[in-house]
């Protein structure tokens, strides 16, 4: 029994894929030393999308909540960093947890009154929330957000003295360190009662409540955590780009994040990484195709869902593939 307990968690996740894991790790570490700044930046944005995908995965992948407004949390994180840094000189690194908290608090306040809404209605409300954030940013209330041009002149993160993160390589390692830490925390959560509670809610909310799960609390928790992670992504993004503007946080971004989770595999952490790779690397790889690029992109999305609706790397539960969750057909009446 104790062996079984040990097998849940780190050991179980890495056990069967140990060699793959070590190869990937090595590649990750030597990659930035072998390519130009441009390609390091590509990998940086891969990391940002990975973090965003992981953050939405909590809400959409684990709990199954239809969130199409996640870019709003990303925006709150980015703009909190941008405004507090440029207007009040608060250092970027301190703003990392602050941005996470701001986004988390926003999620808590905004989701509490609507968390009970059923799937489709929740969807439209999240879209609405995302749009409200974006429009508010464009309209420059209290002259805070800089309007359509956004906020510029954001600092680099620094620990004082020579320890400043200002080069592509340093940003690369920063984002991937944050992603790695997030993955660690998320795997722990997945294999705890919290992760299970989320999955119970996704499978059958009523049954979950009847089994003792405080459904409202866990749904809110998912949103708050997801928002916090998105806020962290916003902070790092803001300082890397040194400026933020509303067009980076549109409904389209929310859709991209949604696709990352679905294309990779709902509730699957390696899947999210694959999804993020697809979303961020695809435009790069297909750059030579110029304006046909997006046509191919759209087609690939359709084909992916046709042939791998469970995602590129579906969540496995004891070695059985997780694809047919998505089929809501009730097959229990067998006679």
């Amino acid at each position: 029994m104790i062996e079984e307990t040990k097998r849940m968690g780190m050991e179980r996740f890495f056990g069967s894929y140990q060699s793959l894991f070590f190869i990937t790790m090595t590649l990750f570490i030597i990659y930035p030393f072998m390519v130009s700044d441009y390609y390091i930046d590509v990998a940086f944005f891969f990391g940002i999308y990975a973090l965003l995908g992981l953050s939405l995965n909590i809400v959409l992948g684990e709990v199954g909540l239809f969130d199409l407004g996640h870019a709003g949390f990303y925006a709150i994180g980015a703009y909190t960093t941008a405004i507090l840094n440029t207007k009040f000189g608060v250092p970027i690194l301190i703003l990392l947890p602050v941005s996470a908290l701001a986004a988390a608090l926003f999620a808590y306040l905004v989701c509490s009154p609507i968390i009970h809404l059923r799937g489709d209605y929740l969807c439209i409300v999240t879209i609405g929330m995302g749009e409200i954030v974006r429009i508010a940013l464009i309209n420059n209330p209290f002259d805070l957000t800089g309007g359509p041009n956004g906020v510029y002149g954001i600092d680099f993160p620094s620990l004082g003295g020579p320890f400043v993160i200002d080069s592509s390589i340093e940003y690369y390692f920063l984002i991937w360190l944050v992603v790695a830490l997030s993955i660690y925390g998320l795997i722990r959560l997945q294999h705890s009662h919290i992760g299970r509670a989320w999955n119970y809610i996704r499978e059958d909310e009523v049954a979950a409540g009847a089994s003792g799960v405080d459904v409202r609390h866990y749904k809110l928790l998912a949103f708050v955590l997801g928002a916090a992670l998105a806020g962290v992504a916003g902070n790092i993004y803001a300082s890397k780009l040194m400026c933020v503007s509303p067009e980076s946080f549109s409904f389209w971004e929310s859709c991209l994040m949604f696709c990352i989770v679905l294309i990779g595999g709902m509730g699957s952490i390696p899947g999210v990484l694959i999804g993020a790779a697809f979303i961020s690397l695809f435009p790069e790889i297909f750059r030579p195709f110029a304006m046909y690029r997006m046509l191919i992109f759209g087609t690939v999305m359709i084909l992916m869902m046709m042939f791998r609706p469970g995602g590129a790397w579906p969540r496995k539960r004891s070695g059985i593939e997780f694809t047919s969750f998505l089929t809501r057909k009730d097959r229990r009446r067998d006679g």
Partner: protein
Amino acid sequence: MVDSDLRNTQPIVLETKNLTKVFGGLTAVNAFDSHVHKGEICSLIGPNGAGKTTVFNAVTGIYTPEKGHIIFNGSYITGHKPHHIVAAGIARTFQNIRLFPNMTCLENIMAGQHCRISSGLWGAVLRSSRQKQEEQETRNVAESRIRQIRLWDYRHELAKNIAYGSQRMLEIARALATNPTLLVLDEPSSGLNPKETEDLMEFLTGLINEEDITILLIEHDMNVVMGISDWVIVMDEGKKIAEGRPEQIYHNLRVIEAYLGSDDG
């Protein structure tokens, strides 16, 4: 069958007083009074649409009644949220089995222990010793329950892949994993063949004898009702129309069947 003087010697575990539930223009449950005594198996019977499941849903917190109260072990639980009621000690199963289909049998049962876990977010992320202990306890309870329903070999199988009869038992095991004092079962024998029904009856009476538990069930199968109940309550059109020991109800049943017979259409 247990001693029928149970009702006189044992305390009341669950009581409904004047329970009334209205949906739009329809009064599904109308001034329903009942009590269930500790250690007994009490059956709630009646034609379809009589309001039995609505009573269950009110007792387990899914609905809030318009009028009346529900008292569990002396405390008012009317209108409380489902997860609070589970934590207080009432666990249920559903008429149309509601398992978590894409999770393993073991994980399904582990859901029951959720309300007994007190560690939070940080405990889970940092794997505090309390969290590890509670995880271990959860597994232990789930494993012992899955052995009890004789599905140990299927513990890592996805719940949707096991046989219908096993799914019914799995749902009961999940309810038992909450460490309940009152088990509320909604048509547990529905869809089971005669052998499975017999096993179920044996299982339930075994539960009463071995554990400190009370069972309230909705049933249509008269073999089950007559076979294991200590007390039977009859509902029709939202009201209680009779109650008594199984033999009493059985004879009364002739009258009721005549009543029902004239009613079916």
